[in-house]
């Protein structure tokens, strides 16, 4: 399966789009069209729903870098999502309450500026991923899954038991953080901003996947022994991917905090780690747009089935089983066909 397509050379020659590119374009236009359509019809709730899909797709895109391209099944990506959320929540909390976050070496009262918050969230996510990755990457397979889960749970319980920032109750952000030149409280402006971030992140991942780094990363998924034998150590390549991945997912967490104007330990819970994995399986692990397809389908089903039955997760489970058993390439694999090679 997976991402050989991304590095295949003569793709899209002569100006004709491949089927995968058409599917990707349809997904992107679908998201934007849905958001703008809902806005035109004054359906604020649906604009917010589209924004949520886009944010979760960013989080999933971060995971896709390590899972889809590097083959690392991280079951702890809620950690980066939640840390990004708390980075946003804590910075805004101090700014909105005029309390100093720290007083040395200078007095810092937090900030409500999104660009600053985003950079902070990404730095925190990257740092956490560096530590967790360096320790987890000593293991492989099931042990890797378990140790990433364990780190995620550690951070979850820490957040619950730390009263300074709300503990179990979470931390409200009374006013959505600001972005220069935009009114972020206007749902459609915030939606547009999130879409720009989403497509920038997908562009970044596409660029990485095609680079020398991406070639080594995708080789690490397929055959670590061979990678060593051509003189490339898989560990370093995978760790760098893990750090970038943590930063991207943390950025999504910061946006999610702003969407809900609220951060709570639930952003750190293993349920969320599982949902991110489900997005990728649904969408088609290793396909660039898998997180968007998967998050879109998941949120749509949650919304539609959830209205019909309280047990929508049961029916959703059946669907997931079907995808795993019969459509390994997920939605995108189904629509775009198998990977094109060269």
């Amino acid at each position, binding site marked *: 399966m997976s991402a*050989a397509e991304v590095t*295949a*050379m003569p793709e899209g020659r002569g100006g004709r789009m491949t089927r995968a590119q058409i599917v990707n374009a349809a997904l992107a236009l679908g998201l934007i069209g849905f958001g703008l359509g809902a806005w035109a019809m004054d359906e604020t709730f649906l604009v917010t729903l589209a924004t949520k899909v886009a944010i979760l797709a960013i989080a999933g895109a971060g995971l896709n870098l390590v899972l889809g391209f590097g083959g690392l099944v991280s079951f702890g990506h809620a950690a980066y999502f939640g840390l990004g959320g708390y980075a946003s929540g804590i910075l805004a909390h101090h700014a909105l309450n005029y309390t100093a976050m720290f007083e040395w070496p200078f007095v810092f009262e937090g900030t409500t500026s999104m660009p600053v918050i985003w950079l902070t969230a990404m730095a925190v996510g990257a740092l956490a991923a560096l530590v967790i990755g360096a320790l987890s990457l000593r293991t492989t397979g099931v042990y890797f899954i378990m140790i990433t889960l364990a780190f995620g749970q550690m951070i979850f319980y820490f957040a619950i038991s730390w009263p300074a920032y709300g503990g179990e109750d979470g931390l409200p952000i009374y006013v959505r953080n600001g972005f220069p030149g935009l009114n972020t409280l206007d749902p459609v402006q915030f939606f547009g901003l999130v879409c720009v971030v989403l497509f920038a992140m997908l562009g970044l991942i596409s660029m990485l996947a095609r680079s*020398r780094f991406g070639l080594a990363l995708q080789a690490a998924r397929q055959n670590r022994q061979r990678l*060593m034998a*051509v*003189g490339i150590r898989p560990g370093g390549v995978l760790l760098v991917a893990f750090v970038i991945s943590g930063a991207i997912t943390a950025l999504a967490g910061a946006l999610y905090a702003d969407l809900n104007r609220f951060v709570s330990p639930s952003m750190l819970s293993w349920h969320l780690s599982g949902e991110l994995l489900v997005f990728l399986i649904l969408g088609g692990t290793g396909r660039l747009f898998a997180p968007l397809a998967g998050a879109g389908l998941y949120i749509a089903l949650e919304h539609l089935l959830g209205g019909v039955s309280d047990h929508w997760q049961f029916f959703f489970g059946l669907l997931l089983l079907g995808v795993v058993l019969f459509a390994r390439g997920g939605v995108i694999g189904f629509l775009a066909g198998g990977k094109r090679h*060269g």
Partner: protein
Amino acid sequence: MADPILDIRGLSRSFGALKATDDVSLDLRAGEIHALIGPNGAGKSTLIKQISGEIAPDAGEVRLRGRSLAGVDAAGRARLGMARSFQVSSVAPEFTVLQNVVLSAQGASGASFRFFRPVMRDAGLLGTAHDCIAQAGLSGREAVPAAELAHGERRKLEIAMALALRPALFLLDEPMAGMGTEGATALGDLLDGLRHRAPILLVEHDMDAVFRLSDRVSVLVYGRVVATGTPDEIRADPEVQRVYLGEEA
């Protein structure tokens, strides 16, 4: 005589009570094919892995051009030009032939932490890769995913990848295994020419190929080298006939 490219002294490695490699010394000189033969389980693959750095010896040392490789891992040794093929073909199955060989050329370049330019448009790496693919006789198959190659073609792909590493020497573990006679002959002809690029330590079961191609032969039995010499000397060695060639007849 010139110093050997590869010099192995007193290499030993046990798995529990089993001495898979027992005080093995041999060398590989510029321009030669040095064949390593021996019955199944004699320790040939284990020896290759100690040379390539995949497993650590209990005792002894490996020297490349006089430099000890103690503490250098498999990736480091590959960078120094140890180009190896595996007994069971080992490539990136989802990558095309071209991507596999570009990966190898990238490894040799030592620059994998580059994040911006598309690797499959890197003229330098592509040039090297196309050269190596042509030399290995895989021209025209560049765009085929490795998983879809015929067995013999996958062997050739491993050779192309070894060539792209700018080899100082080749470590080939049964490169002809499972190929038909025709394929084996063609690969033999290829190896015949390669020895002048870099010497070859060749593990091989096919005795005709071994005696046709090699300049020297070492015989490994129960982890020990029981004889080293020219093909003629080995054929005539009564000990070798008894413990090894006799078994085949």
